[in-house]
C-alpha cells in the first residue's frame, strides 16, 4: 500500500486537487445556466433548480446557432492551416541551415510582442480596401477573417514544433535520404507521423486561441449573420448584464463543447514513445 502511495497514489492526489481547482468556477457557470431565474444575483455555487429555460431562450431569441457555426468553421480551418504552415517552417528551422535562420527565429518571437490592439487601426484600414476590391474576403466574411488569423500562423507555435522536431533523431531523415527520398517525402512520410503529438497540441492551442479571439473579430464582423461566438456573446451582456447572466452562462457552456471534442479527438495522437525505439542505438 505504502509503495502504491509513493509510486502512483500521490499522483492521484495531485490530479484530484488540480481537477477541483479547475472545476469550481465551471460548476458555478453550470449552476447559473440551469438557474430558472437566469439572473446573476440569484445564482449560487451548487445548482438550486434545473431548467433548460436559459438554453431555449438562447436558441430561440438569439442567433446563437449561426455564431456557433461561424466560430467552428473559422477556428477549425485556421487551426488546421496554421499548424500546417507552422510545421513547414519548423522543418526548415530544425533540419536546414541557411542565412538568416537565427534572426528569423528571433523575429518570429519579437513580432508577436507588439501590442496587437493598436495594429487594429491599420488592419481596419487595410481591410476597408480589400473589401472594396474583393468582397469575398473582406469584412463580414469568414474567409477574410481566416486569412487574417493566418498572419499569426508562424510564431510561438513554430518554436514549439521546432523544439519537438529537434528531438526526432536526425538519422531518420538521413537514412531516408540515402534510400532516395526527396526532402518533401522525408517531411511528409517520415517526420510528420513522428511529430503527431506536437501537431495535435499546437492544433488545439490554435483552435482555442481562435475561438477566444475577440478584439479583431469585433472590428471585423458587424453583421449579426457573420458574428462569431465571442462577438455575439459580448452583445448579450453588454447592456443587460444581470438579466442575461443565465443565458450568457448557457452560451459559455455550449461554446466549450467544440473545444472539448477537438481535445478528445486529438488526445489519441498525444501518446507516449512514438519516437523511442525508432533508431537502433
Amino acid at each position: 500500500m505504502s509503495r502504491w502511495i509513493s509510486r502512483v497514489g500521490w499522483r492521484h492526489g495531485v490530479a484530484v486537487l488540480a481537477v477541483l481547482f479547475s472545476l469550481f468556477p465551471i460548476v458555478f457557470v453550470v449552476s447559473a445556466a440551469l438557474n430558472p431565474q437566469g439572473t446573476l444575483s440569484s445564482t449560487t455555487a451548487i445548482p438550486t433548480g434545473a431548467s433548460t429555460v436559459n438554453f431555449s431562450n438562447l436558441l430561440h431569441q438569439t442567433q446563437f446557432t449561426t455564431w456557433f457555426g461561424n466560430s467552428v468553421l473559422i477556428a477549425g480551418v485556421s487551426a488546421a492551416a496554421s499548424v500546417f504552415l507552422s510545421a513547414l517552417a519548423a522543418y526548415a528551422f530544425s533540419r536546414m541551415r541557411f542565412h538568416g535562420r537565427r534572426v528569423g527565429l528571433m523575429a518570429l518571437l519579437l513580432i508577436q510582442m507588439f501590442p496587437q490592439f493598436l495594429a487594429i487601426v491599420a488592419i481596419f484600414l487595410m481591410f476597408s480596401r480589400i473589401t472594396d476590391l474583393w468582397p469575398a474576403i473582406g469584412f463580414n466574411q469568414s474567409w477574410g477573417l481566416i486569412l487574417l488569423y493566418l498572419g499569426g500562423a508562424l510564431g510561438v507555435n513554430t518554436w514549439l514544433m521546432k523544439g519537438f522536431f529537434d528531438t526526432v533523431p536526425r538519422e531518420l531523415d538521413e537514412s531516408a535520404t540515402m534510400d532516395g527520398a526527396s526532402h518533401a517525402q522525408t517531411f511528409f512520410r517520415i517526420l510528420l507521423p513522428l511529430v503527431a503529438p506536437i501537431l495535435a497540441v499546437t492544433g488545439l492551442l490554435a483552435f482555442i486561441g481562435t475561438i477566444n479571439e475577440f478584439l479583431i473579430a469585433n472590428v471585423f464582423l458587424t453583421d449579426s449573420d457573420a458574428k462569431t461566438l465571442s462577438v455575439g456573446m459580448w452583445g448579450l451582456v453588454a447592456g443587460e448584464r444581470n438579466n442575461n447572466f443565465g443565458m450568457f452562462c448557457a452560451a459559455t457552456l455550449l461554446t466549450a463543447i467544440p473545444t472539448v471534442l477537438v481535445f478528445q479527438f486529438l488526445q489519441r495522437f498525444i501518446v507516449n514513445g512514438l519516437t523511442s525505439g525508432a533508431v537502433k542505438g
Partner: protein
Amino acid sequence: MTALLERETAPDEARQPVRGGITGTLFKVVLLGLVAGIAVWAAFPLIADGAWLGLAILLATTAGLFYLYLTPRHVPLKYLVPGTLFLVVFQLFPVLYTAATAFTNFGDGHRGDKQDAVVAIQTSSVIRVPGSIEYALTVATTGDPATGPLTFLVTDPATRTVSAGTLDGLEPLPAGAATVNASGRVTAAAGYTVLNGGQASARSQEITDLAVPTAGGAIRSQGLSRAYEGKAARAYDAVCDCIRDTATGKTWAADEEIGAFVAADGERLAQGWRVGVGLSNFTRLLSDSAISGPFATTLVWNLFFAIASTGGTFVLGLACALAMHTPRMRGRGVYRLLLVLPYAMPSFAMLLVWRDMFNTDFGLINNLFGLEVDWFGTPGAARVAVILVQLWLGYPYMFLVATGALQAIPAELSEASRLDGASPWQSLRQVTLPLLMIALTPLLISSFAYNFNNFNAIYLTTEGAPFPVDNPLNGATDLLITYTYRLAFGGSGAQYGFAAAVSIFIFLIVAIISIVSFRRTRAQEEVYS
C-alpha cells in the same frame, strides 16, 4: 550539420524533380495551378480599379512562387515562404504601419489628408438657403440596422429619381431598384436595409451629423423624413491656401506644421489633416508629468503581473504534467480532460464570470469561504485576484505544452539515470528539466510577452480598479496597455499617433527583457549549433 551542407550542394540534388516521384509532381502541379487561379481571380478587381502597383506586386509574388517551386534550389525557402507570406501581409505590414503613425498626429480631427479636411469643413458649414430643393428622405444602411454605415435614400421631388447619399457623395440608383410610396419616400431598395422609426431615432445624432457632399454644398437631414440641399458657408480658397467664411470674411490659414487651419486670432478649426510631427509624441510621453509620473509605478506592477502569471502557471502546469507522466497511472485521460476544462471554456466569457465571482456582496468566492473581502476595492486584494484568475486560465495551457514536451523526452534517459542510482528528484533536476527547458523557454518568454500585454485580463475584470483618489487615470491593477488604451482612446477622443508611440515604448521594454532573458538561457545552444 556538415552532412546537410553537403546535401545542399550534392550533384544529385539537380535530379530532385525525378526523386519526388509521381505523386509529388502531381501535387506540385495542382498546387501551382491553384496559385495561378487565385492570382487571376485577384487580378481582375485590381485591373478594374486601376491599382497598378498592387497588380505589379501580385504578379511579382506569383512569378516568385512559380520560380521557387519549380527550381530544385532554395530548399529552406520552399518551406518558409507559405507562412511568411501571410506573416508579412497580415502582421508585419499592420505593425509597421502602426509604428509609422507614431511620428504623425493621426487621430480624431487628423484622420485624412488636407483635401478630406477641406471637404469636411465645407459640408459641416452648410446652411440652408431660401429656395433650395427639399427631398423626401429615407434612412437606410448596407449593414446591421443598429451599427451599419448610414445611407440617405433621397427622392428628387421633380424627377422622382432616387439617389443614395453617403459621406462619399451622391450616387443615383438604377431605375426600378427602389420602391417609392405616394408621398415620394423610399420604402425598399435593393441592397439596402431601411431603418424603421425606432431604429432611426436611436441613431438620430448620427443622422443629424451626416452631410452628403454635393457640388455646391451638401445634403443634410431635417428630421427623419426630409432632407434639403444647402450651400457651404465656408469655402477653401486656393490663392491664400486658407478657408474663408463667406458671411463674415474671416480666414483660417493652413498650417502644415500642425495639420490644421488657424485664424490670425489663434482659433483652430476642428477638422485637420495628418502631418508628420517627428518625435513630439515621444517627447510628450517622457516630459508630460501627468503621463510619465505614474508610468514607473505601472511598469513595476506590470512586470510583476507578467512574471507571476507566467511563472505561476508554469510551475502549476509542470507539476501536474509530471505527476501524470507515467503509464502506471489509471484514468489519466479523464484527469487530463477535466484538468484542461478551464482552457476549453471561452476565456473572455470566463473573465467576466470571474469578475462576478469576486463580487463583494453576492460573489461566489466570499460566499464559499465566508469572507468579507472587498476584492476590487483594495489594491492588494485586486492584484491577488487578477493573478489568481490568470493562474486558473493559464495553467492548463502550461500543462498541455509540458505534457507534449515530456512525451518528446526518450524514456530511456530517465530509465538510465534510475539505473545509475539517481533519485526521481535528481533525475528530474539533472535530466528531464534541462531537456524540457530547451523546448519550453521560448514558450515561457512568449507567454511572458503575452501576459505583459494581456489587455483582456484587466479590461474584462477590474478595468484597472481600484483608482487612487487623486489619479483617475492610473489604477492599481492597470497594465501599461490598459493605461495606454485609456489615455489614447478614452475621454478626449482617439489619438492613434500618440498611442502608437506608447506602443513602441512598450514593445521596446518587452523586447529588451525577452532578448536579455534569451541570451541568459541555454536554450540558445541549439540555435547556435
